């Protein structure tokens, strides 16, 4: 903007195409889930459109910044935007954590006869409250005829003796270490130490991939050996939804950090005093880390 203090961008095709891509993705997903054969095609076409638009969008924002168009005030807008976006993510996870607390603290005791006990007597006779929930109300009341069947085994705390052969423990070690390495990367770029930045960020991305690999191992183990699936009553539901959404966020975060690493290694982006693209990704990474600590205690240790 000539003479102004704030960069207001020219007209842009990005938003309308992003909207179209987003629409096509969800429209395809809905068709897919409803069994329409066009669904997967629409879904992937939409996803590709959306990804292409985002690629362009970020490229343009980066080149605007490199061209010096971004005032300190505009940069502050990006910082504020990222901060509040992470807050919205916190609230999304809060809904699922809240659901788990409600189920364990209120719903299951009531189903097991606490309070007036009428649900238990009339609908689910014989159901007893336990966590992890292995015997669902359906199994308690209907035995072999039950359709909602619990898992054969759960992901619970093995005691301190089994700690070092317990996969969630190693996942915690991996993710907490990655939070430290991404912090070292941040310190390195602030000290203008490009080599250390690249190494530390690279290690962070690697740890992200290791976490995802271990998480995939855990899911395969759960499905094939523990009989623990999304369909295994409320324990399977809460276990997979909480860890699954967390895993999806780790995937996002790993991709974000990988892009930042490639930008630094291939293009030499980021300066000691101008690196918010990386910093935003690192904030996101710390956020998924904090969520994991919550999961580790609520879903695994006390689960």
């Amino acid at each position, binding site marked *: 903007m000539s003479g102004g*203090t704030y960069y207001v961008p020219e007209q842009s095709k990005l938003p309308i195409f992003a909207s179209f891509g987003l629409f096509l993705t969800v429209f395809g997903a809905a068709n897919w889930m409803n069994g329409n054969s066009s669904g997967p095609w629409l879904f992937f076409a939409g996803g590709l459109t959306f990804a292409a638009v985002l690629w362009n969008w970020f490229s343009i924002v980066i080149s605007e910044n490199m061209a010096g168009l971004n005032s300190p005030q505009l940069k502050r807008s990006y910082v504020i935007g990222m901060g509040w976006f992470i807050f*919205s993510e916190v609230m999304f996870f809060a809904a699922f954590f809240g*659901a788990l607390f409600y189920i364990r603290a209120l719903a299951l005791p009531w189903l097991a006869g606490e309070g007036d006990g009428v649900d238990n007597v009339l609908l689910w006779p014989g159901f007893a409250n336990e966590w992890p929930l292995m015997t669902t109300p359906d199994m308690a009341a209907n035995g072999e005829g039950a359709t909602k069947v619990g898992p054969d085994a759960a992901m619970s705390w093995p005691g301190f003796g089994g700690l070092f052969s317990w996969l969630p423990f190693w996942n915690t070690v991996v993710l907490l270490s990655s939070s430290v390495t991404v912090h070292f990367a941040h310190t390195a770029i602030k000290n203008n130490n490009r080599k250390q930045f690249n190494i530390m960020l690279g290690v962070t991305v690697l740890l992200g991939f290791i976490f995802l690999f271990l998480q995939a191992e855990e899911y395969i183990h759960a499905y094939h050996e523990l009989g623990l699936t999304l369909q295994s009553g409320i324990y399977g539901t809460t276990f997979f939804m909480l860890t699954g959404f967390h895993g999806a966020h780790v995937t996002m975060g790993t991709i974000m950090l990988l892009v930042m690493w490639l930008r630094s290694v291939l293009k030499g982006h980021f300066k000691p005093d101008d690196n918010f693209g990386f910093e935003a990704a690192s904030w996101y990474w710390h956020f998924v880390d904090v969520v994991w600590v919550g999961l580790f205690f609520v879903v695994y240790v006390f689960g």
Partner: protein
Amino acid sequence: MAHGPAKGITRWLYTTNHKDIGSMYLWFSFAMFFLGGIFALVIRAELFQPGLQIVDPNFFNQMTTMHGLVMVFGAVMPAFVGLANWMIPMQIGAPDMALPRMNNWSFWILPFAFAMLSSTLFMDGGAPNFGWTFYAPLSTTYAPPSVTFFIFAIHIMGASSIMGAINIIATIVNMRAPGMTYMKMPLFVWTWLITAFLLIAVMPVLAGVVTMMLMDIHFGTSFFDAAGGGDPVLFQHVFWFFGHPEVYIMILPAFGIVSAIIPTFARKPLFGYASMVYATAAIAFLSFVVWAHHMFTVGLPIAGELFFMWATMLIAVPTGVKVFNWVATMFKGAMTFETPMLFSIAFVILFTIGGFSGLMLAIAPADFQYHDTYFVVAHFHYVLVPGAIFSITAGVYYWLPKWCGNMYNETMGKLHFWLAFIGLNVTFFPMHFSGLAGMPRRIPDYNMMFADWNMISSVGAFLFGAAQVLFLYNVIATIVGGKKATDEVWENPEGLEWTVPSPAPYHTFSEPPEFKSSH
């Protein structure tokens, strides 16, 4: 920055201008207002007499559902975002919204989302028919297949709202003119800042609850299924944790609009500015701890009934502060009664009636009688129609001359007001009586004893609908012609928006203006 808008359709498709985006939000909202209004008139036509005359019960349920969804997410929320887009940058002396491209993205998601939601009316099994609150298991186990499209429509609307809210917060926090401290901001800006916070806090929770539905429907999870250890009541808790702040999302910006209009036409500064700010914040805080007052009859423990009853009644205190301040602003003022002022005074009176019926509903033991009756329908329409809709209408008449440079026709504006005012009271006041007598919500047929009040409500509804056609005419007539408006438009109105020409230039405040506050 001399250049004006681009030519042709691409001006609207590719725009990054807050005024263009504001206009698109407002026109989109207007279209959805008429669509949701048509659904409402189908409901009222069927209820004109007892018995089934016009639609079958399943389609009736689709109409109640779609009416609520379209009005809440399509009409009221986008209208407030449209007003925010137009007015916040002009009121704080900013050149535009903080993130102009994301601003346009927030808008353009909405037409796609509502096209998808509306298309469910033509799908096998029909549109969603489980009420706008979509309680499980009606919305999961017993839902039509179109529920999947409904879920994804909600998802992308939520993304739009979150991005819009982030943009508004970044704008207000980062782009105020020098000298405009937080406690000198216009109240419309303050109320929107708090509303944006509420949006970011609860739209993700809505996304969470529809995701749980999606998983239960398509992937065999047990969130809302007691057979697997879940609980249908869990749905209501998560939904209303979103839903109660949501009703304040639909009313806090209204408080801001009315707090701008009443001082102008009372020719007195707003009474109790600081207490208005604190009351808004208090209402927002309380909105997070009252959600289960929507659920008094589902079998909450007695401690829950009591906590949510008392917390709900507490809301009357900051709301009372606001009503007192509006009345005190008018007290001994040199009042005139132009159209925006008429709508604002009606807002204060009728919203207060809705507030009082809310207080009645907050009393848990009494709610067992009122729950799911037309008394509830009367209550929330008294807070939403004269609350949200009247304030939006007042805001449009108040700022339209600034937007398009022409004065609206005062006689036509007043005619619109009186038709709408009479229409809404004739529609919704009798619902208190039919509700107290026991008429249930969301039902296409009813006992003969409710016939008279229902017939009156239906007549009122069509009158209210006709009044809105007049509104559309007034807006278009003002845009295409009419007396030229002055830059100030009104007599000594307060605010930076009145320091720029009418119509406001395409780009305002490229350089931050000098801000001097009177309070």
